[in-house]
């Protein structure tokens, strides 16, 4: 009797423990599901920052940056009717929605819809306005900064987002979410037995071995075999950050090193990135896509953003607005101290001198021993003055009233003088180049085109940073003064014309497509 009583007591204890285990399992399941939801939010947030908020001005800037550094004036005088600005304006009128970068794959449209729901719910929970745009939402800010105090995580597992969380898992099961491609997440929802689950680590080890093979092929020169294996690697281990970095670098640099320039007429339109691409550029954008994939799977790895922004968008493609976006995101996350410097340089390259200046000043405050910051501060101060002068001069030209015109010109030259003073103080090649530009500008304003051209011919050998700009100015002044262009200059103009023509036809086609 007693023995039986003890047995029954033990059995009850066992059942009680199993019940506790079940409850604990339920809690774990909840946390795991919340975690998946959280990771997805993280991924979408990265996208909100990077691709989701392109306004018209942004596109205009991108196109102007891509327009081979030729000013609108030059194009106009070269009698090529559509300027980049006008193209941008045309794009702005209606076609913009269709053209915005298609980050969501077709047939998987639920991410944004669901995320809007998340934003509304969190705003309500945090006591803000529920109809805040995504970019300004608190949850986006929290996640974008890497959720340092865990508040976003508290929301992700809390009751406020229960509805969205439920929807998330429903969509996930139906595979309607583009931003939840992490193998972990998909596998957790996939059906059937996956023995890889048992030997979970094997998959990562396998990824390493595939990567070794990629490396081998690279050294054997069998580059055509690398791309599929690179994709396999990150499919096996989506957290393999270095594979993304090195892989993209292979694509952007190593594979394209031996390729020649594609003739403008042979370039193709890449709708996903809205760019005209040749053979080389195709690989640049493959690298961009590869890194974008990495960013979705590792939205908190600053290296990926940095690589995308600096190495690919800035150095290779010369797409400064995008470079700025990625570099900005990199600086939001824990990063190395060289990251912001590249961001400020890109801002400068994109003509955003004010922002660059603010950045450099802030940088100097944080790292007072930095030696480049003071130089860049000077440089941007000068550029800012120069920009002001350019603006006033343009206004002066446009002004009807001769009095205003004179006044504006005077103000413009005063700004130029200030810029010159700053450049003189700098005592370096960059400043020299800029001073020559201002000199030439002054001469051209006075109608002394030959002198201006002669000055520029001399100047472009003095400062490498100034070469392209000087060359373009020479074309501009020759055209204005009616001086015949040299052969290479003619070629350059033709190239620009070709490019523009092609762009126009492709825009046309795209507009037709979007209408269908």
């Amino acid at each position, binding site marked *: 009797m007693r023995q039986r009583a003890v047995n029954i007591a033990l059995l009850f204890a*066992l059942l009680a423990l199993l019940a506790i285990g079940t409850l604990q*399992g339920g809690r774990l399941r909840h946390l*795991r599901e919340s975690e998946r939801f959280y990771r997805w939010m993280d991924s979408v947030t990265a996208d909100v920052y990077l691709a989701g908020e392109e306004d018209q001005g942004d596109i205009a800037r991108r196109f102007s940056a891509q327009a081979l550094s030729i000013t609108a004036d030059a194009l106009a005088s070269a009698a090529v009717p559509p300027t980049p600005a006008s193209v941008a304006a045309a794009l702005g009128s209606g076609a913009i929605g269709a053209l915005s970068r298609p980050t969501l794959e077709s047939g998987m449209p639920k991410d944004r819809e669901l995320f809007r729901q998340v934003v509304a719910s969190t705003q309500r929970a945090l006591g803000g306005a529920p109809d805040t745009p995504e970019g300004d939402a608190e949850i986006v800010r929290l996640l974008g900064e890497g959720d340092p105090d865990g508040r976003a995580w508290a929301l992700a597992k809390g009751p406020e987002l229960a509805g969205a969380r439920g929807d998330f898992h429903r969509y996930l099961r139906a595979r309607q979410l583009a931003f939840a491609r992490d193998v972990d997440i998909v596998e957790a929802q996939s059906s059937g037995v996956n023995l890889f689950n048992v030997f*979970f680590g094997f998959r*990562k080890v396998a990824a*390493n071995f595939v990567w*070794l093979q990629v490396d081998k092929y690279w050294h054997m020169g069998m580059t055509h075999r690398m791309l599929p294996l690179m994709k396999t690697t990150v499919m096996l281990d989506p957290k393999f950050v270095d594979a993304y970095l090195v892989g993209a670098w292979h694509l952007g640099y190593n594979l394209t090193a031996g390729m020649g320039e594609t003739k403008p007429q042979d370039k193709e339109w890449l709708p996903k990135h809205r760019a005209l691409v040749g053979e080389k550029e195709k690989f640049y954008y493959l690298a961009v896509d590869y890194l974008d994939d990495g960013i979705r799977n590792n939205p908190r790895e600053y290296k990926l953003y940095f690589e995308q922004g600096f190495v690919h968008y800035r150095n290779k493609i010369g797409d400064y607005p995008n470079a700025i976006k990625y570099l900005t995101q990199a600086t939001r996350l824990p990063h190395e101290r060289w990251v912001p410097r590249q961001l400020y340089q890109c801002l400068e390259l994109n003509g955003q001198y004010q922002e660059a200046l603010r950045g450099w000043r802030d940088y100097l405050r944080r790292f007072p021993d930095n030696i480049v910051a003071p130089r860049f501060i000077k440089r941007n101060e000068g550029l800012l003055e120069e920009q002001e002068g350019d603006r006033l001069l343009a206004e002066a030209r446009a002004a009807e009233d001769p009095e205003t015109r004179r006044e504006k010109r005077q103000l413009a030259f005063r700004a130029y003088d200030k810029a010159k003073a700053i450049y003189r103080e700098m005592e370096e090649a960059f400043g020299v180049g800029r001073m020559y530009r201002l000199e030439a500008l002054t001469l051209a304003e006075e109608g002394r085109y030959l002198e201006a051209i002669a000055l520029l011919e001399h100047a472009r050998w003095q400062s490498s940073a100034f070469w392209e700009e000087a060359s373009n100015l020479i074309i501009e002044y020759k055209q204005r003064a009616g001086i015949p262009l040299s052969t290479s200059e003619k070629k350059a103009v033709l190239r620009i014309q070709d490019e523009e023509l092609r762009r126009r036809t492709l825009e046309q086609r795209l507009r037709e497509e979007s209408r269908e």
Partner: protein
Amino acid sequence: MSSVAVSAGGLLTPLRGPWTIAWYTYREGIRKKTLVGFLILSLLVIFGSSFMGAFLNPTTVGDVEKDIDLKLIKDICVTSISIFGILITIFVSASAVPTELENRVVYTILSKPVRRFQYLLGKFAGVQLIVLVNLGLMGALFFLLLYFRQGVMPTLLLWSIFFTYFEFLIVSAFTFAISCTATSAVLPTIGGLFVWITGSLTEYLKDVGVRSGWKGWAGFEGPSDLMEHFSVEKLVGGLAESLFRVLPNLQEYNLKMQILDKPPNDPPTIDLIPQLIIYGLVYAASGFILAYLFYRRKEI
């Protein structure tokens, strides 16, 4: 002062026997050839992983190459630690009790003033000691490897290894329970492997539940509902779903990989680690009670 010592001794007396047995189990277990074999093999793999980087051609970008090299070491080591570790765990847990039955040592022990509960407690503790020491050895080598490569303390790694132990603990407890019904180590070893594989595949049960059209216990409206809309699929689904909830899910411990991947201040990971430790302890306790239930009136 002496009175304190006496009272402390009095309190600890019931634990003296188990501790003696645990220590003996440890000393005996650590000498097993199979165990030593596994350990050497795993140490070789861990050590060998540091040469994997040699396959990377050194012309790749400097820092990244070093990073990939480290990643190789990490992945191979964590995987081999978890696989060799689980094999060692199963093997030791399965053989601790049956071996003593085979060589009759158990007769000399249980004829002494030692309760069967104390005996099992001692055996189980001894098994855990062996598992921990093995894990410690593998972890230490891995740790040193990373430390010399990286030059920084791989704290995350320590967490990951510490954490892996609780997965082993669950498998160990249930294998131990099986071994308490057996007279030789063969059956419990197979049983232990089965526990491990089943525990790793419980997600599948959920899938069976979902596919059967079972709406979960939340949608259950009492026996009358079941009678009216009865179907075998539903029954199987309900069963599978219930099993899924009750059985320990070892997949949750995949976090060990995540710890190495994610940056140190990842809020969900910080949240999950203590929960998973509790989870491990609860199931280990139920496994141990099951073992006692099997063993307490076992005729030996």
